[in-house]
């Protein structure tokens, strides 16, 4: 029972962060809840495999990333509208081109919000994941590297490239950056 209480506390601690990460990949609230639930169930069942080499949070993030990836992989053929599409997938909103948008327009927060939303859904899975982990969850590069199982240098390179891709998409929306 002590384990159950401790695990319940762990869920309480991390549920918002895991849910927020999953929710960015899924347009359906209930599906995001189901996938987050599955993350914690998997974590509970795999607690004995948690070796303490990484922080618990990064381990949970890793499970969440894998959970969404596996779900997406399984659902690719089924055009699940509840998944926010990735770059190149059906339903991915193409960014407007610089020629079709007004050049040098003012950076309105409202317009930017729409642009960010479109841009995020135009990224690859890897780009979206690293941007969210770094910019939304505020992971340090060491933590990001541990979560993704890559080197710190590689983590930095991926974040930099993802930012550049995001900026390119914002530019493509007509912003003069």
């Amino acid at each position, binding site marked *: 029972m002590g384990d159950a209480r401790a695990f319940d506390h762990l869920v309480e601690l991390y549920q918002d962060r895991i*849910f927020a990460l999953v929710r960015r990949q899924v347009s359906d609230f209930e599906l995001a809840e189901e996938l*987050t639930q*599955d993350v914690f*169930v998997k974590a509970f069942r795999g607690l004995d495999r948690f070796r303490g080499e990484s922080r618990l949070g990064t381990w949970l993030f890793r499970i969440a990333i894998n959970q969404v990836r596996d779900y997406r992989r399984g659902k690719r053929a089924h055009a699940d509208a509840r998944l926010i599409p990735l770059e190149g997938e059906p339903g991915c909103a193409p960014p407007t081109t610089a020629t079709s948008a007004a050049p040098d327009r003012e950076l309105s927060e409202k317009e930017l919000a729409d642009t960010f939303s479109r841009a995020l859904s135009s990224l690859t899975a890897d780009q979206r994941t690293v941007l969210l982990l770094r910019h939304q969850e505020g992971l340090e590069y060491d933590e990001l590297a541990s979560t993704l199982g890559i080197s710190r240098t590689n983590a930095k390179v991926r974040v930099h490239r993802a930012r*550049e891709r995001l900026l390119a998409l914002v530019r493509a929306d007509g*912003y003069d950056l």
Partner: protein
Amino acid sequence: MSDHRDRTRGEGDAELHAYLDDELGDGANADFEARMRQDPRLARTVGVLGSFDRWLEETRETAPGSLRDRVQSQLSSSSVDMNRTRPHDAATSRSTTRRWTDLVRLPVWAWAGAGAMAAAILFLVFQPQLPRHEGAAGVDADVLTTDAITTDAIVPGVAAPSGFAEATLADHADGASGATPPDVALSLGDTIRHRFTIEAQDASRVCLVGSFNRWTVCKTPLEEVRTGVWAATLELPRGRYEYMFVVDDHWVTDPNSGVRVDDGFGNENAVLLL
């Protein structure tokens, strides 16, 4: 004057990213801010990335309050011995039994016997339909023998997909134990126990992934029932399902499946009609 985009190579403007990551020293930080004052585009770029952070924060959603309870509930239900009645089910069954007996004032044991008979009748009625469904999916012919029905282990954790009548495996495990209450016995006609098999020599792990488990890897592992032969038995509501096997992280179409559909990405999902 060169703007910051001239510096963009590969991962972009290294100074920009170092500034964003707060990795510049005091002097370099001041230099970069001087650059921003000289280069409006660079300043706008930093501003946009700041707006991105704010947008992420403002649109961030928190987990629903029910999540903790749902996790606890799933952990509780999945850890129960499948041969024993879950407390919730027991209460439900007792309650149902009381209602029925109150109606006609018969003792519980009489309804238990009637339930068993109803189950037997329903099973006999539906039995002739089963091989046709099994054959359509090209699965093991021996799946639906009486022996398979009564002795196969059930893979836990697969609940009825949405849109179907609620029919969890634990409910039907009660029936296997011989303590079948009337309401559970009646549900036999709505679900079919199905055995999935695949030959996979030298595999270390084989999983079943399909529309019945929300394509979750590896929610439904197969057991190696004999060397190189893997199997799992699920009890599913009648319906149409698509599935694949995952053999050591490789997605594999069921070679025994007679009905397949193109998944649009160069592979095929097996189709199971129950």
